[in-house]
């Protein structure tokens, strides 16, 4: 195999500092939003005692799911021995860490008591999936960190395959853990399903790869490095398979629920009568996030069009956020079924569909988390050689 040459980007242009400055500003706005939320209490957000998890969780879970998916490119190279993906492995690992960090920042800053981070680290309830996730996230940073180190260090390079395998297994467990946060909630009609875990894994493939492609194209375009069609179309085809697989899982999930009478209420809610949630599901998740990207990926006229691919990836990200919105918030908006056969009413909003309007603060926090991820990537590729100097097609190089 030909030796790949990696170099750090120069990162001394005005545009580069502009990018860092812009992202820094977004992070600052996010921090101000957090300060406002924590100072006044969560009543200033759209979250209530009915919708207890809101927009921050939509962003956080999306980023965490995408993080494990971003590692996929590296896994294909090291675990499945596809050498063509080898040059992309370093960036894949870096993006995985960056996305996870961004997601965790959002999750942490939304806590009622973020100042008690030390409590979260020192008190563990081992029966809690949340507590497992804290271990899984920490482990992910460590294992992927070691994996990147082995990829970059000549002396350790021979252990790269083992590290890659460990990272691959770990990321599967991690996404299972994230999916199980919802899958283990017996009380709520929308969540109680073992299918949640594999569905989250498939989603991670799709969301992670979409973000990876965007970051790859942007960094090569903005640094003037060569990015060949071979690499891009390979990633594009892979993306097509993942998008189709996500759609398949969503269909199976809803068909299963439709078969079970107990779940008819919640299905009717999400699919037909849920107002904003029904719209987000059909327009955001299914059409924009699934069918349109799928059609564009396999459309004949735009095969090698980078702009179309960027649009496809953006749509998948929008679809991913919509998916999280439907699952997390739609699932809570539907009332808990405590008294089958009865019409229920109370002063505590029992038996009614709960309303949710996301506040600007929650969105600012979520977007701030995305900025954290991107700043990490932009900074690290400047100080360390993560990007191959050229990814030109083989015959032309």
């Amino acid at each position, binding site marked *: 195999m030909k030796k790949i040459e990696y170099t750090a980007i120069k990162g001394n242009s005005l545009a580069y500092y502009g990018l860092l400055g812009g992202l820094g500003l977004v992070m600052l706005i996010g921090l101000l939003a957090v300060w406002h939320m924590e100072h006044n209490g969560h009543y200033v957000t759209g979250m209530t005692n009915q919708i207890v998890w809101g927009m921050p969780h939509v962003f956080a879970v999306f980023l965490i799911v995408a993080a494990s998916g971003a590692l996929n490119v590296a896994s294909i190279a090291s675990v499945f021995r596809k050498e063509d993906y080898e040059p992309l492995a370093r960036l894949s690992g870096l993006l995985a860490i960056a996305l996870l960090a961004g997601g965790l920042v959002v999750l942490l800053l939304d806590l009622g008591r973020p100042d008690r981070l030390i409590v979260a680290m020192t008190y563990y309830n081992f029966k809690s999936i949340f507590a497992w996730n804290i271990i899984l996230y920490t482990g992910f940073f460590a294992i992927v960190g070691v994996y990147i180190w082995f990829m970059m260090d000549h002396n350790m390079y021979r252990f790269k395959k083992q590290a890659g395998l460990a990272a691959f297994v770990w990321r599967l467990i991690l996404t299972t853990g994230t999916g199980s946060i919802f899958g283990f909630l017996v009380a709520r009609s929308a969540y109680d399903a073992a299918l949640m875990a594999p569905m989250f894994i498939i989603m991670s493939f799709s969301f992670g790869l979409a973000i990876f492609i965007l970051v790859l194209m942007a960094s090569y375009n903005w640094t003037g490095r060569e990015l060949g069609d071979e690499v891009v179309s390979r990633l594009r085809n892979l993306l097509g398979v993942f998008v189709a697989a996500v759609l398949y899982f969503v269909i199976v999930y809803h068909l299963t629920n439709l078969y079970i009478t107990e779940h008819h209420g919640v299905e009717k809610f999400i699919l037909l009568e849920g107002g904003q949630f029904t719209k987000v599901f059909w327009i955001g998740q299914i059409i924009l996030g699934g069918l349109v990207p799928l059609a564009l990926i396999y459309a004949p006229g735009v095969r090698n069009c980078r702009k179309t691919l960027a649009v496809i990836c953006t749509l998948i990200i929008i679809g991913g956020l919509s998916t999280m919105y439907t699952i997390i918030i739609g699932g809570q908006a539907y009332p808990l079924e405590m008294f089958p056969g009865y*019409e229920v*009413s*109370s*002063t505590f*909003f029992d*038996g*009614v569909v709960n309303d949710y309007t996301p506040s600007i603060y929650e969105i600012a926090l979520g977007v701030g988390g995305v900025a954290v991820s991107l700043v990490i990537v932009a900074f690290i590729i400047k100080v360390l050689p993560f990007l191959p100097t050229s990814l030109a097609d083989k015959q032309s190089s």
Partner: protein
Amino acid sequence: MINRFLRITFILTGLVLLFPVTGSAETPLPVIHEPEGDGVKCVEPEDVMRRDHMNFILHQRDETMHEGIRTSKYSFAECINCHVEPDDNGNIAAADSKDHFCNACHEYAAVTIDCFECHADRPQKFINRGGKSSALQEEMHQMLTVIEGTGGELK
């Protein structure tokens, strides 16, 4: 080079020497309220309390919370009951004021405590509920009337 080093050292030494002097003038030792009365004394000698009160409270906290042990010796509520009293005008200093028994020292020592985010900062008899509780009751009564009037959906 050495000259410069000496000069900096002198200036720094001067600053260090200066600080305790101005410091003691500007931050007087905290004045804390000591309960009065015949035979009234704290559960431990003063120097023990000063050093270990947080351990006593923390230990008692977990025992009370998780095991329902409600002895009053190291009870946080009892600290408040004895040590927090109104001033001559009948006002009680709030937990974040430097006249509050706890905060008087804690502000001096620059140690932030988290107790009064949840706990009452004064004895029960001085807690002014200000009729806010009835606001919640009124709110709920109104909603209940609405529910029962329509007999169904709550809007």
